């Protein structure tokens, strides 16, 4: 089954083929579930003029914010980008193009892209600036707008456990956009916390089937917490 061994041992191999002007779909929500090492590798490669599709854009010194700092990103497709001062600067100065997309529409654009559906109708955004220049069609007396799906030259994702074939399991809410992103890349690279034996993941418990994944690399993660909120322990 050498043909199904997708494990690579270096980040250079993991991101081989990424070139300027490509579109990269990145999993993660805020700093949760982001492929930290793969982002770092894009930074190291210095690839430029990238279109990045990701719900958020990291913070100034972590996650996708690293690529902003080096001005490697030409365009961001995101739903919320408020955590990043460098983002604000580049956006206001016109260096960075931003396509704000409602979060659910963004998720569905990626899901549909991976599922071979080129566009879909949604009520989300009807009557708002998001609907500008989009086709409107009424179904059952309700207006919907036509949204086109998204695919990427690369998808970079993070998983908890992965086997050599690329079957993946995600951990808690670090799942977020990762399983959809996995389906929508021409080349999908999964950075995992742990590589497990083929057969050790129960078939019914696999979140992302191996067919979507091209490369697997074992990463080590800082797992930075964006907003630590706690309750005091009782009776201690």
């Amino acid at each position, binding site marked *: 089954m050498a043909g199904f061994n997708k494990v690579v041992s270096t980040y250079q191999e993991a991101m081989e083929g990424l070139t300027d002007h490509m579109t990269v779909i990145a999993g993660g*929500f*805020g*700093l*949760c*579930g982001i492929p930290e090492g793969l982002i770092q590798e894009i930074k190291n490669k210095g690839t430029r003029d990238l279109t990045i599709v990701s*719900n958020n854009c990291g913070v100034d010194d972590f996650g996708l914010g690293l690529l902003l700092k080096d001005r490697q990103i030409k365009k961001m497709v*995101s*739903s*919320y*980008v*408020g955590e990043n001062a460098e983002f*604000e600067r580049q*956006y*206001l100065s016109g260096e960075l193009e*931003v396509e*704000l997309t*409602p*979060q*659910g*529409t963004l*998720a*569905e654009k*990626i*899901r549909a892209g991976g599922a071979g559906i080129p566009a879909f109708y*949604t*009520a*989300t*955004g*009807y*009557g*708002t*600036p*998001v609907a500008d220049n989009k086709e409107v069609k009424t179904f059952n007396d309700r207006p919907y707008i036509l949204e086109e799906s998204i695919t990427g030259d690369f998808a970079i994702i993070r998983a908890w456990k992965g086997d050599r074939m690329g079957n993946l399991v995600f*951990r*808690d*809410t*670090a*799942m*977020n*956009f*990762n*399983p*959809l992103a996995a389906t929508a890349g021409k080349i999908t690279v999964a950075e995992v916390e742990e590589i497990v034996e083929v057969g050790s993941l129960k078939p019914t418990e696999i*979140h992302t089937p191996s067919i979507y994944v091209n490369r697997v690399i074992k990463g080590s993660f800082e*797992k*930075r*917490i*964006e*907003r*630590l*909120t*706690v*309750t*005091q*322990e009782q009776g201690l």
Partner: protein
Amino acid sequence: MALTRDQIAMRVAQELQDGYYVNLGIGIPTLVSNYVPRDIDVMLQSENGLLGMGPYPTEKEADADMINAGKETVTAVPGASIFSSAESFAMIRGGHVNLTVLGAFEVDQQGNIASYMVPGKLVKGMGGAMDLVAGAKRIIVTMTHTDKHGNAKLLKQCQLPLTGVNCVQKVVTDLAVLSIKDNAFYLDERAPGVSVDEIREKTAARLIIPNHVPEICFD
């Protein structure tokens, strides 16, 4: 007296029903979870992909992989489920969430809401708000009745770019509880000690005032 943020949340909590799946936005809406009546069960949905959000963790339990849509560390209650963002918005868009509570800059008498951008200021994005107002069965907005300069936020027609159209059914402000129907705000309740005249003065929309407007009551 105008209601405090917590009192607004307490009043919204009275709208919860046993068995509701609820999505709470950032700010005052989040406080609603502190006032869920003891005799009912609700499940909180967080749109990044968690149904059954629990309280904040202890410092020891806090886990970078376990967050809510506000990017805060949280826990899951027994019976919770975790899923992808596509699944999460399928349940939102598909009308499975009973109630969403969110803040706004403006609401108008057609039930339109503006909550995500002020032109000329930095646009941070709508996050999941457009999907929530288009998809949830019931939408309640919490906000102050006027902005900090005293301008009305309940309007005939929203001036700011819209988040959604014809979707808000109820508004709970620091001064009043109002429902929206037939192209008008109906004054249902007023904050204790706040006069109907004050509310009329601070509302720049068609306002229907019944003969008797009871005070908001907290039990």
